[in-house]
């Protein structure tokens, strides 16, 4: 399809002059957005830029205050998510909407299970159900046993089931929200192959992601949102990661390369990992290679580990924060014994500690009484770091520390980890993001099948390609 053809065609879906406010917050401000049949249109922006709101307008979850939504050139009004689905818009959220206890085939045909009539009584036609499921999944080059329960599949496989379910409904527009957040390299490649194939068959795809390198590799067009407005829209080839960062944040991307530190005493040596003070050590590997098992093993007895000066930032934020409780309570949780005098909490000491670390880590909004659930992903992650920095731990174990955080917060978190090491701390970072690992770490342990196969040091010079080979990707 040439550019001229694109200009002539009717968008599969479009949003014109859309605005949406929540209370005093203007989440979307006069936004134009469209996606053509046979096109992958990426949507990027920092947390709070309005990506989710735009996706929710298209998915029928929110209604615009002003502006219009059109599908195939026809103006539409979605009163609920069902209306959007009927109009052919399918959203694949990060939390997949599948029933874990049902089989693949049952999930795929949940909306309209094939029935046959026996004496006028409708019964599920299991053979037809399996057949339909196999057909639908074969389109994605995915051939699991249709009778297997969905909770037995990996996340990547469940995602393919969810996409396949959307395709069965003859969707015109597929919206993917951070689809690769929980995928490893090989699975991402398979997903991309699926998306490219769907595109060549004429599907329109909206791709929301924090991972800008993916956007550059995959998208035909890219729209950048900032503070609810479209600040840039460009075609393939006309944008690179640096441009996107600049458009998203409004400033040039700092070229962050870690300075060399002189490592100190060995703080942890368990046979697999030897971690020294003033060192950031990375764990790289494909999903299932056991990278996140290492920090969890070192933290298998939290009480003991904390007592010996180790802190843990788990890979899911819901494991790091009591979301219903205040930022203050969360930061103080592992520090209660340190701010108690004679068994009673010294409130002034607690406040001083919380205020100091909220300043230091630039946690926004600067309100310790706010429930943790009200913070953005990046700020939540900083609260988890604050818990341990306030305790002055010597070792930080971090499992996917920047998963699902925006570019600016990611840079801040990286800087915090570096300064923690500079001040004599030791950090162990498990991450599936190889670019992150190579930029952040002084040494990298490449892992396969639960074992470290190679240690590469910054001094030896490393890059993503070399790391790929080491982990067998």
């Amino acid at each position: 399809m040439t550019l001229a053809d694109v200009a002539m065609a009717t968008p599969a879906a479009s949003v014109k002059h859309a605005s949406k406010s929540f209370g005093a917050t203007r989440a979307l401000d006069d936004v134009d957005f469209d996606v053509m049949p046979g096109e992958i249109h990426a949507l990027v922006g920092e947390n709070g830029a309005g990506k989710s709101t735009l996706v929710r307008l298209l998915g029928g979850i929110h209604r615009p205050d002003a502006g219009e939504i059109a599908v195939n050139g026809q103006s539409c009004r979605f009163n609920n998510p069902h209306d959007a689905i009927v109009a052919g818009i399918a959203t694949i959220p990060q939390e997949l909407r599948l029933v874990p206890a049902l089989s693949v085939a049952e999930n795929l045909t949940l909306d309209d299970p094939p029935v046959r009539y026996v004496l006028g009584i409708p019964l599920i036609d299991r053979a037809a159900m399996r057949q339909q499921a196999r057909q639908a999944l074969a389109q994605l080059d995915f051939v699991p046993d249709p009778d297997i329960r969905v909770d037995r599949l990996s996340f990547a496989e469940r995602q393919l089931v969810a996409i396949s379910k959307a395709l069965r409904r003859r969707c015109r527009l597929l919206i993917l929200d951070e689809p690769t957040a929980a995928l490893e390299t090989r699975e991402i490649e398979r997903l991309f192959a699926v998306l490219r194939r769907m595109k060549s068959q004429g599907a329109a795809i909206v791709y929301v992601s924090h991972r800008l390198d993916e956007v550059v590799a995959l998208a035909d067009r890219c729209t950048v949102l900032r503070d609810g407005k479209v600040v840039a829209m460009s075609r393939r080839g006309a944008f690179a990661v640096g441009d996107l960062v600049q458009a998203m944040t409004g400033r040039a991307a700092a070229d962050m390369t870690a300075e060399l530190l002189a490592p100190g005493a060995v703080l942890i040596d368990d046979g697999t990992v030897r971690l020294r003070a003033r060192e950031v050590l990375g764990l790289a590997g494909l999903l299932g290679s056991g990278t996140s098992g290492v920090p969890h093993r070192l933290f298998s007895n939290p009480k003991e580990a904390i007592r010996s000066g180790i802190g843990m930032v788990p890979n899911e934020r819901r494991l790091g924060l009591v979301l219903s409780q205040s930022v203050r309570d969360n930061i103080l949780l592992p520090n209660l014994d340190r701010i108690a005098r004679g068994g009673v909490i010294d409130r002034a000491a607690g406040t001083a500690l919380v205020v100091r670390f909220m300043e230091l880590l630039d946690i926004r909004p600067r309100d310790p009484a706010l429930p943790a659930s009200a913070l953005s992903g990046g700020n939540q992650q900083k609260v988890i770091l604050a818990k341990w920095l306030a305790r002055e731990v010597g070792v930080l174990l971090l499992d996917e520390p920047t998963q699902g955080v925006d570019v600016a917060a990611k840079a801040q978190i990286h800087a915090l980890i570096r300064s923690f090491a500079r001040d004599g701390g030791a950090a162990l970072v498990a991450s599936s993001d190889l670019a992150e690992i190579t930029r952040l770490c002084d040494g990298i342990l490449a892992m396969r099948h639960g074992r470290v196969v190679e240690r590469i040091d910054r001094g030896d010079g490393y890059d993503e390609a070399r790391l790929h080979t080491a982990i067998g990707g």
Partner: protein
Amino acid sequence: MARRINLVGQIPLITLLALCVVTAFLTNRFLSPLNLTNILVQSSIMAVIAIGMTFVIVGGGFDLSVGSTVAFAGCIAAMTMAKFGIAAGVLAGVVTGALVGLANGLIVAKLGVNPFITTLGTMVLVRGLVYLVTGGAPVGDDELPSSFIAFGSGRLLGVHYLVWVPAILVVVLSFVMHMTPYGRRIYATGGNREVAYLSGVPVDRIITSTYVWCGALAGIAGVMLTARLQSGQPTAGEFYELTAIAAVVLGGASLHGGEGTLYKSIIGVFIMIVLGNSLNLLNVDSYWQRVAIGAVIIAAAAADRLRSRL
């Protein structure tokens, strides 16, 4: 925003005041000193139970066994007191309650059995034990020390002894809940057990301890009831668990755990007791009273759901 949240936090108090004002308009007997004293005394025993229930619910649990525990502890206290005196009797009652709570806590925390099923089991089991030890008849009738009987009806500074008990407990235990590391760890454990565990909180011990509090306080309530009834009644305390849970939820605690305060639970108790009292004063049929109280329990649970969506 902050102001709105504060208003949501004051819903229990507003509900209670509205209930009082409406009832006072409908009948002038409501504000009589006799009636108000009556409400305070009636609330006192339930308030002690609700304090214990708040510990469990804030910690993310649930306890259906308190009604049976009240009867069991009350009867054990009466039987012991008749033989060995007041101090031994009170101690026996409280320890009995604490042991029931310890059993609940260990089963829930260590074995991981659902709190609803665990305490449903102990509710029936403990009621069976009450009938076994008492033979089904009241115990300690005419055998209790006279000074203990006096405790059940006497006053200090014009206020019934029975009312002093929850008043003192709520002050001391609120301090424990809010100002000690132990108290904050209960909130964290109830808010998210896994996060608390990964932050070094001994969650099993914390959860067990909340049930021990609940049992021990039910034991104290049992002793108070025995003083008031002047004997240990094996049938006492039925449906107390439901009233206590309803009161705690009316007071704004979340059944998901991690939220709730003692003094608001006490307000919840007052709502339940004042409601019953006003229906009585207005001569509402006792069958209809049950219907009304059941509806209030459902409304409280629905309010809990609505609040979690705010």
